[in-house]
């Protein structure tokens, strides 16, 4: 019984991708892809943030810890950031973050930063499809057995 189950699960594995899209470019590209009735891999759970620079590396670790198989960050092209240089900050953090994740045994394909403008719905579709394919081939991201993350800290004070 368990053999059959395992085979079926493996065959049916669909990756869960958490996608942080900036409000001004990549989220609009996703919107455009939708209104243009484009078909693409439905694996991403999109979270809209005001800017890719808002994506704290903690968000990415948290996504993996909570069962994501991949994380995609989408922002405006360099020079086009609504906040001047939020996407550059995202790139700086991402460069270090990717190295840390690799050191922790997370495959590079599971974490991706893409510049996708509001007009590039086709590019969004291609990135989504490609990433879903790559992660499907890698298999599920699995936290090690016995690796139980501690509870969130008790907030000691609430900022004003």
């Amino acid at each position: 019984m368990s053999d059959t189950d395992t085979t079926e699960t493996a065959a049916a594995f669909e990756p869960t991708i958490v996608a942080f899209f900036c409000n001004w470019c990549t989220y609009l590209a996703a919107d455009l892809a939708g209104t243009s009735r484009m078909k693409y891999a439905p694996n991403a759970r999109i979270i809209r943030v005001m800017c890719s620079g808002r994506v704290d590396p903690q968000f990415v670790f948290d996504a993996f810890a909570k069962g994501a198989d991949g994380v995609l960050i989408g922002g405006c092209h360099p020079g086009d950031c609504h906040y001047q240089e939020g996407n550059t900050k995202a790139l700086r953090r991402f460069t270090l973050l990717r190295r840390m994740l690799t050191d922790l045994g997370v495959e590079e394909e599971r974490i991706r930063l893409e510049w996708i403008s509001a007009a590039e719905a086709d590019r969004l579709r291609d990135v989504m499809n490609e990433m879903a394919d790559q992660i499907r081939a890698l298999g599920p991201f699995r936290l090690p057995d016995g690796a139980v993350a501690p509870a969130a800290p008790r907030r000691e004070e609430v900022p004003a």
Partner: protein
Amino acid sequence: MTAKPKVAFYWLASCGGCEEAVVDLAEDLLGVADAVDIVFWPVALDSKRADVEAMEDGEILAAFVNGAVRTDEQEEMVHLLRRKARVMVAFGSCSHMGGIPGLANLWDKEAIFDRVYRTSPTTDNPDGVVPKTEYASNGHRVTLPGFHDTVRALDQVTTVDYVVPGCAPTPNIIAAAVGALLSGDLPPAGTVLAPDVALCSECDRRDTKPDDLTITEFKRPHQIIADEDTCLLAQGLLCLGPATRAGCGALCIGANMPCTGCFGPTSSVRDHGAKAAGAIASLVGADDPEEIERILSTIPDPIGTFYRYGLPHSLLVRKRQPAGATE
């Protein structure tokens, strides 16, 4: 005499520095010894596990436990002390977040045994003998505690009431914690007993930290002679002060060495290393991807830098093992 509250000290996977820190209380230690009855402290007193087992549950006021949990024996002792003590205190970075021993989470038991007992240059072990949990010798059964793949912080094993942070905790922090415990004037359970602000806020050099701080090369302490009055980050040294809890009095910075993060994060941060990495990376003074890569490559070991004291306490806990690996 019998009215004195009982306390216990115990060490798990640790270096002994936390025990030193208790002795570092100097003459204040005499005050502590007057006020409490130290019923269990294997490093200093001849008391045994059986003595603790013989106590009533909750008989001990507080157990101060330092060190991370990596063996079966340590886990058993943690559960025993939790039963006997009304207040469980994680003492020092290792029990708070996993500490330096927690970096072993970049490997697993097999890799560690292989290195330590087989392949390290100073090992002479032609028969490839590695520790076993049980061994029969001349008709005697000998046992050793089991060794875990994953090092854990104290709160990943049992409920922890308070944390005294630091590697090792500083005398002011220990004295304040003991004082609070004895007076009964305690904050809500789960509190880290140190100020909930970043170290920069109590650093003497904070006024020399530029508003638009950028870094074009990360330097290591041995590579430069750092100015003794200027913010270390402004001099290119990777100081974790902006992402680390205050309370130590910026001792390392006083010795012209950057903060390495032993007090852990403030309560608004979930993953110390991720937050610290985010804070430091955004200081990189470049826009071009290759230049960013080059500057960040001057940080030789990001995990060992940003998770120096807290890999087990991070969101990912440890390096991912290949699928099918057993715990």
